[in-house]
């Protein structure tokens, strides 16, 4: 079946919105309507609330929504990673149970992959799931779990076979986060935020039907989740359009959405500072007069060279992709480049601030934003794959250098592991 034309799609969407969109509806009522219409997630399959649209048609639909100020499906947090994983690996029953409430925003999700003992080496997870009658019993600890305190469902990677090699003994589950065996504790960060959690499992249970994919194939399922996470990170870097920015957002539904956004986005408020806030550098240097200092100009220029070159490198990668050319090395470099940019930005902000860089909060430069930059940048080269792992990937996959000698190929039981440790705040 060939795709409809963009103009007919635009006409369909705007017509549907004109007869259905109403800012005085409740958020949940509207989203259910939207999910049934197929306009909420047009890139999804027609069987599951979508229309099988290509990216360009999806963009057209989004623009029509923006023009009328219409609210879309819930997108915050990791819900769409969960949905993408379930669409690819879940059973019909999983899709029926979870997809709608993901899109309406009624359910919130978290990702339970990293552990205290397995960070870069994600497949070294030691949280265990043991089948006991009709349920899996889960014991262990997860870490860096964004929004675990809001979530009612979790994507869990746990070990089900200790005699298989590392990657082959893992299984993938959906776990109910609201149960006695699950204990969520916030993890305070060096920048004062606590957007991640530690999650402790003490005989927590997963119903037997909530295994996603096959037993022992959890790593492959987790790869799907991570691939979508990476794609989303690239999307976030590409910025937003401001279509419909002039629409007055008045009505009950906007108030409800604002509350939702404040909750869901709360863990991410410091992320722009983590990236270094290059956007503030030039204006701060000009406004403060520090631009008169040749050292400031030199360091600022280095930052601008780096950040522009990184942006243009990403554009080259995207252009090659759009033309269907094989991906060149430029596509693997964004994460590593972002670390360099963030560190250079922190250096420039310090240089512009001078002694003020010693101060934080309302005493600090830019009402504490600069202090937050300085204390958040160290995370950028760790989160989502450390610089060291990125360099390994670039060296091995792009430059075709030999792989590391491995010491974890045999039965996982025999692989040297970290001793489980509970972090601060725990008394056991």
């Amino acid at each position: 079946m060939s795709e409809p034309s963009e103009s007919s799609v635009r006409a369909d969407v705007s017509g549907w919105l004109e007869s259905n969109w109403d800012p005085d509806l409740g958020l949940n009522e509207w989203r259910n309507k939207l999910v049934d219409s197929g306009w909420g997630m047009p890139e999804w399959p027609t069987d599951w609330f979508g229309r099988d649209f290509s990216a360009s048609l999806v963009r057209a639909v989004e623009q029509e929504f923006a023009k009328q100020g219409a609210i879309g499906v819930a997108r915050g947090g990791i819900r769409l990673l969960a949905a993408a994983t379930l669409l690819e690996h879940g059973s019909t029953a999983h899709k029926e149970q979870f997809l709608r409430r993901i899109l309406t925003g009624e359910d919130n999700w978290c990702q339970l992959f990293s552990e205290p003992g397995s960070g870069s080496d994600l497949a070294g997870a030691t949280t265990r799931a043991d089948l006991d009658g009709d349920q899996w019993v889960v014991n262990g600890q997860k870490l860096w779990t964004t929004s675990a305190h809001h979530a009612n469902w979790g994507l869990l990677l746990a070990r089900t076979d200790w005699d298989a090699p590392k990657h082959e003994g893992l299984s993938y589950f959906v776990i109910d986060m609201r149960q006695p065996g699950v204990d969520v504790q916030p993890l305070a960060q060096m920048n004062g935020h606590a957007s991640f959690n530690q999650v402790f499992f003490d005989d927590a249970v997963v119903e037997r039907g909530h295994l996603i994919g096959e037993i022992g194939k959890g790593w492959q399922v987790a790869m799907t989740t991570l691939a979508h996470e990476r794609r989303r990170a690239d999307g976030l870097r590409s910025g937003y359009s401001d279509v419909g920015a002039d629409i007055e957002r008045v009505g009950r539904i906007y108030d409800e959405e604002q509350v939702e956004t404040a909750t869901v986005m709360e863990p991410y408020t410091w992320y722009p500072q983590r990236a270094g806030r290059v956007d503030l550098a030039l204006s701060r240097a000009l406004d403060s007069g520090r631009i008169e200092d040749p050292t400031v100009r030199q360091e600022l220029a280095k930052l601008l060279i780096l950040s522009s070159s990184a942006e243009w490198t990403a554009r080259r990668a995207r252009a090659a992709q759009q033309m269907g050319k094989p991906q060149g090395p430029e596509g693997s470099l964004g994460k590593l480049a972002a670390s360099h940019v963030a560190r250079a930005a922190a250096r420039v902000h310090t240089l512009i601030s001078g002694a003020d860089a010693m101060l934080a909060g309302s005493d600090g430069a830019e009402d504490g934003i600069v202090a937050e930059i300085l204390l958040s940048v160290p995370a950028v080269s760790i989160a989502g794959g450390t610089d060291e792992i990125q360099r390994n990937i670039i060296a091995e996959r792009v430059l075709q250098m030999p792989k590391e000698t491995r010491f974890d190929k045999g039965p996982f039981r025999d692989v040297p592991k970290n001793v489980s440790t509970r972090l601060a705040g725990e008394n056991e």
Partner: protein
Amino acid sequence: MVWPPMVSAQFHFTEEQDQFRDMVRRFLVDTSPTTEVRRLMQTDAGYDAAVWQRLARELGLTGLTIEEKHGGAGFGMVDVCIAMEEMGRALLCAPFLASSVLAAHAIALVASEEDAGRLLPSIAAGEVIATLAITEPDGRPGVDAIALPAERTGDGFVLDGRKHFVLDGCSADVLLVAARSPGSTGSDGLSLFEVAPDAAGVTRRALTTLDPTRKQASIEFDGVQARLLGRVDEAGPGLVRTLDIAAIALANEMVGGAARLLEDTLAYTKIRMQFGRSIASFQAIKHRCAEMLLQVELAKSAAYYAAEAMDAESDEATYLASLAKAGASEAYLHTAIEAIQLHGGIGFTFDQDTHLWFKRAKSSEVMFGDPAWHRERMMQALIVKERASSEAQMGQPA
């Protein structure tokens, strides 16, 4: 503020451009292996006349951006930069930068139509090698630093002074000399002159260069009768643009050299065995190579982007030329230093080829202005633009 500046760039090469690159690369693999580079760098002229003729006749490179009406191919900056990148890879020894980039653009941008029609066809055909004498013994980059006076005498001009760092100055058949009307400063009062190398009062001396693959000369002008090209005192803007073009071209040459160094270094680390394994299997080596790749690709992106901006005649071209030149200089030198380090002791020997690129990298780093100079220049351009835009905003009615 729009950041980063975006001209209507494609961010990719066309199929024709890819084919053009392949053609140039194949030609240079044949004609400029390092055995040839080593042979030519020991000659006075520093290039092979037969290869230069083939470059002109078979590939049309010598007149690449010269307009078709003047016998050239009428290509754009992106195409020149593809050629420069490939020449940088192959470390080609030839007066391309001097004659086909600097001199050809200076003539096209400054000279009268009549003079352009007289000079450009023979440059395009590769029959005449021209060069631009602009920098003086103090080595300061940019047109502000031009001090050599041009005195008006009756119906002509007389040059007195010295030009230094003149690319291929000893082998050039035509010297283009940038000079200043006494009493002028900055980019005002600048004129471009044509001088025959054998004119009375011209003394040329080959400079001993750190990079023997690119020849430079010091040229003394002692009461030399010079022929004015274009209008008197109005060469400033054209010379500024010529230097921007040269900086972008050089940036592309540099990223070509850097990419080649990375490839050669990678190949070496994969075959070099120590402790019973290839050194490419050590993370200490892998991580350095990954960083080199990042630096090279970032510099490439800026060099390509600046070339596109120049073709689009963007207002940002000066800013982007300096950005690309500073970025490529740092990346090339970094890559060259790492390349020698990763080769170990053999990398410090004369017989191994890495030092050939290292010397080109070091020399190119400071040619047409070192990275710090270009960073300052891009910041000044940015500051002027920011102040203009904030004044324009304040001037608007509320």
